[in-house]
């Protein structure tokens, strides 16, 4: 009986989490279109509902009822698999993000996180590396030159940035002394790590932007060079899954930035979940703003930035932080 109750609570937790994730993803699309339009002195979506608020629903219906095309030349199985890989890995990453402190329910404590892995940070890295397969395989399986170029670029870009992304989080792990995201948030109950690690924060945000394949790092898509890059051949809901994956990924990046550097759900006055959502929202807003402001980098500039700037700087940052921790010996 107790087990069953726990199972029901768990299922409700998962449903609320995933529902929220997808709802926010669809409204992030609306927000992005609206804000981007204002930045470009346009109106943006304004036909479906007031302020175009029903636009995401209209989009979902349109994508669902569209014809799905698999080119004859494409590798059918991998072509169908690739968008699912992108969407599933993006959603899975959210499993380790703590939404708040444990709450009491039916006289038992219910953790506000799906799973508190003691290697949570490595879990996130593993999934974000797997997500690259979606891009690379989708580009390759399409059997179109533009898609192939997009896919190769995606793979090369990701592997250049993942190093900087990983190394920028080493100081966070050193300060928290754990890979568990819950422990990392707990370690920031006093001072958020952005204050202690501004360099790490900058490297993390830049490489996370590259990881999310958005302007100024959207070379795998690069509309004006490659058609639509790796998803040129995709239509209907398969394209929709790539799209969904991208916007869930924005939320994941917002959540990870919040967890690693902005103190997670810690904050005064407001309830913890609200604080976390606020931080995710601010990060997403800044990413949209950057998209509306910056041009796309050239390919060699991108690789040079990753290998020649971010990786050496993050390595030196690790050494300095290590010495500082030993020297101060704090907490």
């Amino acid at each position, binding site marked *: 009986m107790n*087990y069953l109750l*726990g199972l029901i609570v*768990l299922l409700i937790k998962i449903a609320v989490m*995933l529902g929220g994730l997808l709802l926010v993803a669809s409204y992030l699309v609306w927000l992005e279109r609206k804000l981007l339009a204002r930045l470009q002195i346009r109106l943006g979506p304004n036909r479906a509902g007031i302020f175009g608020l029903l636009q995401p629903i209209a989009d979902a219906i349109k994508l*669902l*009822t569209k*014809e*799905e*095309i698999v080119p*004859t*030349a*494409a590798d059918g199985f991998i072509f169908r698999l690739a968008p*699912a890989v992108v969407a599933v890995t993006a959603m*899975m990453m959210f*499993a380790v993000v703590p939404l708040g402190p444990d709450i009491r329910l039916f006289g038992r404590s219910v*953790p506000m996180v*799906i*799973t*508190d*892995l003691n290697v949570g940070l490595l879990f996130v890295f593993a999934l974000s590396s797997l997500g690259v397969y979606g891009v690379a395989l989708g580009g390759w399986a*399409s059997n*179109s*030159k*533009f*898609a192939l170029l997009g896919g190769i670029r995606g*793979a*090369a870009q990701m*592997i*250049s940035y993942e*190093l900087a992304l*990983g*190394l920028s989080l*080493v*100081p966070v*792990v*050193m300060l928290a*002394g754990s890979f568990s995201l*819950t*422990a990392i948030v707990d370690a920031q109950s006093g001072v958020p790590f952005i204050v202690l690690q501004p360099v790490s924060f900058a490297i993390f945000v830049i490489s996370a932007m590259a990881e999310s394949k958005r302007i100024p790092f959207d070379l795998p898509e690069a509309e004006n060079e490659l*058609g639509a890059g790796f998803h*040129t*051949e995709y239509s*209907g*809901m398969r394209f*929709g*899954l790539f799209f969904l994956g991208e916007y869930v990924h924005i939320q994941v990046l917002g959540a990870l930035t919040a967890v690693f550097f902005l103190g997670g759900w810690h904050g005064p006055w407001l309830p913890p979940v609200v604080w976390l959502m606020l931080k995710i929202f601010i990060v997403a807003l800044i990413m949209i703003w950057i998209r509306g402001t910056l041009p796309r980098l*050239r390919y*060699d*500039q991108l690789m*040079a930035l990753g*290998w*020649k700037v971010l*990786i050496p700087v993050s*390595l*030196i940052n690790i*050494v300095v932080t*290590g*010495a500082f*921790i*030993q020297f101060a010996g704090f907490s």
Partner: protein
Amino acid sequence: MQPIDAHALLSPWQPGMLSLTLYGVVVIALTLAILFLSRWLGRHQPNDEKLRVYESGIIPTGQARLRYPVPFFMVAIFFLIFDVEGAYIFSWAVASRPLGWAGWLQIEFFIGVLIAGLIYVWVKGGLEWGPKRD
């Protein structure tokens, strides 16, 4: 804090393996449901023109199973090397406090070698992507 024993690992009240597995199953089921729904609701009227690969209006010539340019392989190999070394740094980072100065000195030597390797690759031109300027 960490669920270690088998009972806690499978308890739905603990943030352990059971909840992760269940979450994974729900996520995959959701994705499959979306794909099934779109297959069910979408129309199917294929024709030769529609099923041809889109290359901006030009009839594609040959396959797109091209050989990857060498620099991409090089980056992949660098990544592999540096990523494995990154894993060592991580395993030190999580225990940096108990290991003390001795651990720090050792990892600093390791990172020094890593930076030397990066400089070597750099000098050899492994990181040059742009058009050659000579």
